[in-house]
């Protein structure tokens, strides 16, 4: 699978997620490689470890304000830290799980791990090439980071 195809799988997943879950379309910006810089983390980051034929991480990072509005769109009234962590982990899980449609059954994913705080650091595989996919939804900015070997 080419890098372009791989990115396309995740972009399609993002668009489907927002269109279905919060029923308001998101836009994906131009994906880029973050070879010499660590991608900026937002308030909450959901991380999925990938194993099997491919190894690496898939992470979704978003501001608290965006996640709060998403919860509201889902009719959820509890905007607690726990629910924000839960949502960001669930988004990362869904985007990773959906990728199995294209990557196959041996694309094994972990349960989500969640980092809170903009100073959080995401650990990548040493030889991985992190691809950052900017996501815009309403006036909010989030990122999907995919680093697979």
């Amino acid at each position, binding site marked *: 699978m080419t890098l372009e195809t791989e990115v396309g799988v995740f972009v399609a997943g993002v668009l489907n997620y927002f269109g*279905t879950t919060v029923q308001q379309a998101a836009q994906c910006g131009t994906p880029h490689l973050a070879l010499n810089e660590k991608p900026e983390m937002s308030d909450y980051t959901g991380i999925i470890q990938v194993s099997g034929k491919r190894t690496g991480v898939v992470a979704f990072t978003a501001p608290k304000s965006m996640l709060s509005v998403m919860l509201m769109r*889902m009719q959820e009234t509890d905007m607690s830290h726990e629910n924000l962590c839960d949502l960001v982990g*669930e988004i990362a*899980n869904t985007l990773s799980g959906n990728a199995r449609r294209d990557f196959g059954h041996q694309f094994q994913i972990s*349960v989500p791990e969640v980092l809170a705080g903009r100073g959080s650091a995401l650990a990548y595989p040493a030889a991985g090439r992190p691809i950052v996919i900017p996501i815009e939804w309403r006036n909010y900015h989030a990122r999907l980071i995919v680093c697979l070997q």
Partner: protein
Amino acid sequence: MDAQHHRLLVVDDSNVIRKRIERANELPEIEFVGAARNGREALEMHSLLRPTLVTMDLTMPEMDGSECVAELVQRDPQIRILVISALADKLTAIDALEKGASGFLCKPFTDRQLNDALRKLIGTDSRAA
């Protein structure tokens, strides 16, 4: 089982998803009776609550949904289980059905898709095969 009344247990490690499934259910035949965060909790709650319907996530800590489906079906062959998972490949769906699940709904889902899947599960969907 009473054809008009079904007792629903929701199993998912996400609190947001558990509550969403509970809220989104609009079928009067289905009564929400409880929620569990993983397969192990689901087995404990099954003993206490005796659900007739279960929605089951697959990727969960402690005991995953696939193992839990097999155990629940062994305990109660009449139980109806709707697997609701982000794992979107066909083999995962086939594996869940082979273990005894009655249906498969892929995350993300709309409220309408959830209710359609629940309708099919309890056999009130006139479009169901």
